[in-house]
């Protein structure tokens, strides 16, 4: 219960960022005190190996993006939800597939790497950004964005194929 007390102290803070979120996760999922969690985080960021720092910075970036979906007032609560889920599932929940991964997977299967980089990666980047913003407005808006981008993705696939085919026909015809 010591951890829960520290956790409630953390909830009293006005400013809550991704470092606070990771501290909450370490406290709840790792079962350490707030001070120890903060120390571990700072030590890894300052003195950890390059690979550790890169990994941690990546996690912090993901957390910032994930928390960005929620209004400030709900961010602390979401960090607690995340930490509790991590503690109960052993971290599997956190490593769920990022939005747009399926789109990228399909695109990689159908198109060349260059096409994926030029067409589909920017589309997925926009999708992730818009989806993160839509989550702040509610789940209905998020569903709308998902539908919009799946339609855009199918259009991009179809249009790409059609334009390539037209270009080849024009080349063959000597136009």
């Amino acid at each position, binding site marked *: 219960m010591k951890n829960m007390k520290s956790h409630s102290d953390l909830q009293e803070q006005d400013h809550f960022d991704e470092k606070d979120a990771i501290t909450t996760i370490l406290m709840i999922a790792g079962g350490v005190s707030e001070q120890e969690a903060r120390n571990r985080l700072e030590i890894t960021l300052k003195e950890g190996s390059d690979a550790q720092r890169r990994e941690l910075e990546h996690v912090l970036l*993901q957390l910032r993006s994930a928390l*960005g979906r929620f209004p400030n007032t709900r961010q602390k609560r979401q960090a607690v939800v995340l930490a509790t889920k991590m503690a109960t599932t052993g971290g599997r929940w956190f490593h769920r597939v990022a939005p747009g991964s399926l789109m990228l997977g399909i695109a990689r299967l159908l198109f060349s790497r260059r096409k994926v980089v030029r067409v589909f990666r920017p589309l997925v980047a*926009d999708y*992730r950004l818009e989806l993160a913003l839509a989550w702040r407005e509610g789940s209905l808006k998020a569903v709308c964005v998902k539908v919009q*981008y799946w339609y855009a993705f199918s259009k991009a696939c179809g249009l790409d194929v059609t*334009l390539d085919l037209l270009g080849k026909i024009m080349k063959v015809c000597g136009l």
Partner: protein
Amino acid sequence: MINSNKGESMMQKLPNRGISTLSATEYLILSLLQGNRGREMYGLEMVGKSDGKLKKGTVYVLLGRLEEKGFVKARQEEVSDTATPRRLYRLTGTGQKVFDAWSQVAALGALRGAVA
């Protein structure tokens, strides 16, 4: 007074005289980049500024084609709030020349329409 027949023949000849072909939406993308005074833009920004003329599903396909033609140059965004960095586009020198040429063609077409 411009002879409308002469204008028409010029319009027909221009693509065969070495000016690259450009669709209406490709022209729109180049005009958006041109209007942005050299500042880089990303796809979603162009969709927003096009008043619904550009769609999310087509903008990156068209930008990819323009990039292949050498009219626009793209680079990956360095710092991003999102996990996936966005792709930023700007007009190249060739793109600028092609845009200018097609603007003249469009102006000529408008003039021809006004005269006729």
